[in-house]
């Protein structure tokens, strides 16, 4: 699709409801589906709609999207179960936009629920014994996400001179946002030295370079911008979207020091939105590990390749810094259920509505949510605004 065609989609749909589950954190008393339903209930109430209004369901869990619909007693006429990892939700906004614009559905509900920590009602592993992962990666001790992300962190540090101190600064700045957010799981002040002194999980990544592992859910509701005018909340317009996938398995990453999918996704989103990088007031960059936003900022064009470490230094992304980023406290300090992307969407909506209290970024009019899927495998980008330029 040409840039001109995509530009015509700018501002055609809006997020009209956004919410999280009642609780986030360690929730052994709630199943993953319960968290889906709780978030959906809250987001629909926020939108001033009911589940009877929903005709499009969009889920990225490890189940069929129709199973989530069944649990909630919804009979969708448009179903999308795209699963490309934690950025699936930004991609699902793009898919919902397409469905709403063509009239294939009128109210789109995107939900997330994951018992990432307590593992209540979660499916088993996605990887069978004859999968690529089990044949060609796990026999060498690839173990959970930290080992895979560390391969990229090493490549980035050795190629560009990025330092552990720079990565730690990002964790500290993100914690400072969490200190301002009563819902954040980790709110104690943090120092660079504490990050560097935390135990090494997979060199060069320390424990405090890694995100939390939590239980929780979130949901957003979208409809056409025309219909949004009749709903109670101020519309958050979808200005730009982009998604891309280069691989799944980390051993297939094209360039370990650059995140190619993120570059492709962000280029498309900026092209569609027609906004400049300088127009972004609030940034929500997926932070499963400290290296991820560093490489994400480079890929999305906020700095040149190799300059991400310097970019996040000096408290630039912290409260009061020049580039407010991960204002809820991020996956590092707020919550991280496993597929964190939904929480970037909810935070962006809250910032654009001015609901964020002590962590509110003044005059926030344009946001970017930049997502990660798999092992730097996929990416999806969403640019939203309070107005259509």
């Amino acid at each position: 699709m040409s840039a001109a065609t995509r530009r015509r989609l700018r501002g055609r749909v809006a997020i009209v409801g956004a919410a999280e589950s009642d609780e986030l954190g360690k929730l052994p008393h709630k199943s993953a589906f319960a968290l889906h339903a709780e978030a959906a209930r809250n987001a629909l109430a926020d939108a001033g709609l009911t589940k009877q209004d929903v005709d499009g369901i969009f889920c990225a869990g490890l189940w069929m999207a129709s199973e989530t619909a069944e649990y909630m007693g919804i009979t969708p006429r448009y179903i999308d179960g795209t699963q490309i990892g934690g950025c699936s939700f930004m991609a699902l906004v793009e898919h919902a936009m397409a469905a709403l614009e063509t009239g294939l559905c009128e109210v789109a509900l995107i939900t997330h629920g994951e018992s990432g920590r307590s593992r209540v009602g979660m499916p088993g592993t996605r990887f069978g014994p004859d999968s690529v992962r089990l044949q060609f990666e796990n026999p060498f001790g690839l173990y959970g996400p930290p080992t895979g992300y560390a391969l990229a962190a090493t490549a980035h540090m050795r190629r560009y001179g990025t330092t552990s101190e720079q990565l730690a600064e990002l964790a500290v700045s993100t914690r400072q946002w969490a200190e301002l957010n009563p819902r954040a799981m980790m709110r104690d002040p943090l120092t660079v030295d504490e990050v560097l002194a935390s135990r090494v999980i997979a060199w060069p990544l320390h424990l405090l370079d890694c995100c939390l592992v939590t239980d929780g859910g979130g949901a957003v509701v979208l409809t056409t911008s025309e219909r949004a005018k009749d709903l109670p909340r101020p519309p958050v317009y979808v200005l730009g979207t982009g998604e891309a996938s280069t691989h799944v398995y980390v051993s297939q990453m094209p360039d370990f020091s650059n995140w190619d999918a993120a570059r492709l996704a962000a280029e498309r989103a900026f092209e569609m939105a027609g906004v400049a990088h300088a127009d972004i007031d609030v940034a929500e960059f997926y932070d499963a590990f400290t290296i991820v936003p560093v490489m994400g900022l480079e890929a999305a064009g906020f700095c040149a390749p190799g300059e991400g470490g310097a970019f996040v230094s000096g408290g630039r992304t912290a409260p009061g810094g020049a580039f407010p980023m991960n204002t809820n406290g991020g996956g590092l300090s707020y919550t991280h259920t496993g597929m964190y992307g939904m929480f970037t969407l909810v935070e962006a909506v809250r910032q654009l509505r001015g609901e964020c209290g002590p962590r509110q970024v003044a005059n926030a009019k344009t946001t970017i949510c930049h997502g990660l899927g798999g092992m730097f495998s996929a990416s999806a980008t969403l640019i939203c605004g309070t107005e259509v330029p």
Partner: protein
Amino acid sequence: MPDEYRGPIPVPLPETRPYWEAARRHELTLPFCTACGAFFFYPRAACPTCLSGALEWRRVSGRGRLLTFTIVYRGPRDFPLPAPYVLAMVELDEGPRLMTNLIDVEPEPERLEIGMPVEVTFVDVNDEIGLPHFRPEARR
């Protein structure tokens, strides 16, 4: 020793079985696309560059260079290599890259240089599977 191996053991697919059969003989062989004239990895039934099915298995040198690595301090339970161990990506002289363990080297960041030459060595884990590990190569 084979009876004691408790790490993950690959289960071949039809398109990967020749790779593992060769590894059992301590030979590193890769799929070669005769349409592209190039190797690729991991083994598939179609060339990821041109989708051709005109493929051959060819033995490669087993030499390459360290592409990137991590030193894993917390590995999976029962993993045969004691932590810390080196999980590495190697780029073979023939082009393809594969994940492996770098052994016979101190697991220290300052001992590991991107681009250092490495060579394959096989570890038998049972009667059917040998795993390609790599070690520093003195040749270059």
